[in-house]
């Protein structure tokens, strides 16, 4: 029964990881860059939520729109003012962009440290749990997992069903092609980066309900997100579901049996193994195609 419990926890965790990863996927898809500040954005959003809840007394779910809009604006500014100005193409351009987002993450970490200190904090909210037979469903984990899944589904539907979403998807498939159809690729980049940042922030808000976050936890989270999308194949929205499940369940099960350090190490080890041995990921969509 224990293993079942661990699996359930892993799947719920995966729901949240999915949202964190899809926001990175969104940015990667359109701009072909990895936002190294992604994890820090998630952590900062989580800490901001804690601050809003404890100091202002705001319900964490009411904090989501505030955090969402704030990070949307930050993302838009970072893209417009900085990333857009990197005119290099190819490998060098990618590396320079990675470097800039690396720098941005240091700025955010520093501001968070200044504002909230280096403590790891969590938000005690919905502490009780539902019971279904022998399985316990921690309320916070269920809510967070469901929230992540629903928002990921919303993102997926927006991309595939609406005009603006399709324009974004088109840009990620071919910038030039999208350009010839009258889609402003520059605007799409801003939108992707801003929306990706905002979704990361939303994920941070619910993540802080289930796990303690600190300003320094950003790098771990960035790598975690990257591993999820790399497992599913970079830029592959459906593949990320599989990636999130693998990482979530592995963390839950291995973390229980082998200890917390393995839980922290796991994404980093997976990162190197995936890139070396299954560089194209598990390629779910290629199998179904």
């Amino acid at each position, binding site marked *: 029964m224990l293993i079942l419990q661990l699996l359930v926890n892993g799947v719920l965790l995966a729901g949240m990881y999915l949202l964190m990863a899809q926001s990175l996927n969104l940015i990667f898809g359109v701009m*072909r*860059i*990895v936002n190294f500040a992604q994890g820090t954005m998630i952590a900062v959003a989580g800490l901001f939520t804690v601050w809003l809840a404890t100091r202002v007394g705001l319900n964490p779910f009411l904090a989501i729109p505030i955090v969402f809009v704030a990070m949307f604006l930050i993302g838009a500014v970072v893209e417009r003012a*900085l990333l857009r*100005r*990197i*005119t*290099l*193409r*190819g*490998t*060098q*351009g*990618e*590396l*320079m962009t*990675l*470097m*800039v987002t*690396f*720098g*941005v*993450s*240091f*700025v955010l*970490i*520093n*501001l968070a*440290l*200044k504002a909230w200190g280096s403590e790891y904090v969590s938000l005690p909210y919905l502490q009780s749990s539902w019971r279904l037979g022998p399985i316990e469903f921690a309320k916070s984990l269920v809510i967070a997992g469901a929230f992540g899944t629903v928002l990921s589904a919303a993102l997926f539907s927006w991309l595939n069903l609406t005009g603006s979403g399709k324009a974004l998807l088109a840009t990620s498939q071919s910038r030039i092609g999208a350009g010839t159809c009258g889609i402003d690729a520059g605007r799409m980049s801003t939108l992707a980066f801003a929306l990706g940042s905002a979704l990361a922030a939303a994920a941070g808000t619910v993540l802080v309900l289930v796990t303690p976050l600190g300003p320094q936890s950003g*790098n*771990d989270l960035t*790598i975690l997100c*990257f591993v999820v999308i790399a497992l599913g194949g*970079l*830029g592959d929205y459906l593949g990320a579901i599989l990636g999130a499940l693998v990482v979530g369940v592995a963390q839950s099960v291995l973390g229980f049996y082998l200890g917390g*350090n393995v839980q*922290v*190490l796991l*994404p*980093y*080890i997976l*990162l*190197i193994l995936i*890139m*070396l041995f299954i*560089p*194209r990921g598990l390629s779910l969509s290629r199998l179904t195609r």
Partner: protein
Amino acid sequence: MDPLAPTPPSAPGSLRSLTRRLTLGGAAGVGWPRHELALGAAFLLAAALTGLLTSGYLLQLATDIFTFMAMAYGWNLISGMTGYVSFGQIAFYGLGGYGTALLILHAHLPWYVAALAAGAVAALIALVLGGVMLRLRGIFFALGMFGLVQILSILFSQWSFAGGGQGLILPGQLTARAVYAETVAVAILAFLLNLYYSRSALGLKAMAIRDDEEAAAAMGVHTTRVKIVTFVLSAIPPAVVAGLVAWNRSYLDPPSMFDPSVDFQAILFSLLGGMGTLWGPALGTVILELVGEQIWAQFPEFQLGLFGLLVVLIVVFFPGGIVSVLRRAGWLRRPVIMAPSTLPEGSPPAPTEEVGRDGPVLEVRGLSVRFGGVTALRDLDLEVRRGETISIIGANGAGKTTLFNAITGFVRPTQGEVRFRGRPIKGWSPTRLARAGIGRTFQIPRPMESMTVWENVLLAALNGRRRHAAVDQAAWVIRALGMEAIWLEPVVNLPPGHRRQVELARALALQPDVILLDEVMAGMNREEQERIRDAIRKLHEYGVSAVAGVEHVVAAIADLCDRIVVLDFGQKIAEGEPQRVLKDPAVIGAYLGEVQE
């Protein structure tokens, strides 16, 4: 995107490409410009005076500066010169620090010996890690190295022999001045490594990998070997200085020894000075440490954020760094590697060995290449005899480039056999094929963007040759192709026609038995075409067989070649003498469209 797949180089000729900023910027100096000697002397004098005259805070600051300078130079080797940007050189810093501490505590070595020994250990570890990590390209290498640091940090925090999370305490001792002296020595060593890279054949190969790794392999560069050697060398300076830092502080723990923000500072200093340049890391470190020290003192709590902000601002607004500004004034330009002050006469290469003289030079049997469901080549036979020029024609997508890629090891054939001088060569790497004697050009010219014409040609000429022979060979190729007027020109300044000439020159400098010319005359004007046609005619004098793949300029090649092979949808539909083949109705149908009566 595939982490192991070759990444495309920067857009050719793009005015704002970073490599352009790293080029000589026009004039070619040979040897040591006076202002560079002066700068070096100034650094040495300042270092010596600081060591003799200062103590306490100032000496500590100077030690920090040279520590970071050594780290920045280490990073510059692998990331600046070779183009493998690493976010994890701090791994070697940590390994060096821990290695030193353990050697002092358990082997009771003197601190200065322990630090050097730890450097050697880090180099060995880099040798093993490099074989694995350097398979990753671009951002994936950067991320992989970053991940490696986190793994090491956690492992060390669990390893009780190394003090675990508590860290290690070293017996404290007042050796500030001696530590400073050894730190300066390491920084100088790291500088000398960079100097060697900016002046030598090894450095030329490293920079070729940065510019275009695939093209470098096609020029016979042992890319893996060069990358691993560079990686090992780049691991030594951070490892040794970390040992000195650990001894100096007499305390170390995983968070401080594997601190990404320390790495980040070294990267920042390199960027500010100018990454990939010889003087950038030194200038960046000194200036920012001296200026920065004042700023950090004012806002100690914002140090991390200011670093981040600076990196962002430099990358976005000042990507070439200080050196790129100075270069506009003609200072600190990289001399053209191994360029003689005047172009030597050069001598034509000696005739190649007699192996397999009789049979065909190149033989393709039943070759098929499939990409997923697409069959690019189907059951193709082809034979090239010594001294022969054949021409492969066919419409777009007929499979010409795929054929060349399959022969030169860039694409793995699905079926069939390729023999070169009678030996099966299927599965050989592009490097090995280039060195064995198969030269090629790329359909879209891929010269090394940060180099001059001379360096591009020399790169290929260096294959297995000693320095003098390579210079001779390169000079001969330049003269043979009539490129004397542009030999010291950076290739970014060249018009497309000249870029194609560089492609051909590089392939010829390999002194190959066969040259595969992929649309070498496309987009050339008549005069340029004539020059290439002359060159192709001359190839035979040097025992080179030529295979040319052409698409549009059929007339230009028809009178040059002995045979024409026509491809259509991956299959050979005709072969024979030019005049006969070009009149074949099937060929006309496939190539020019059906004849309408």
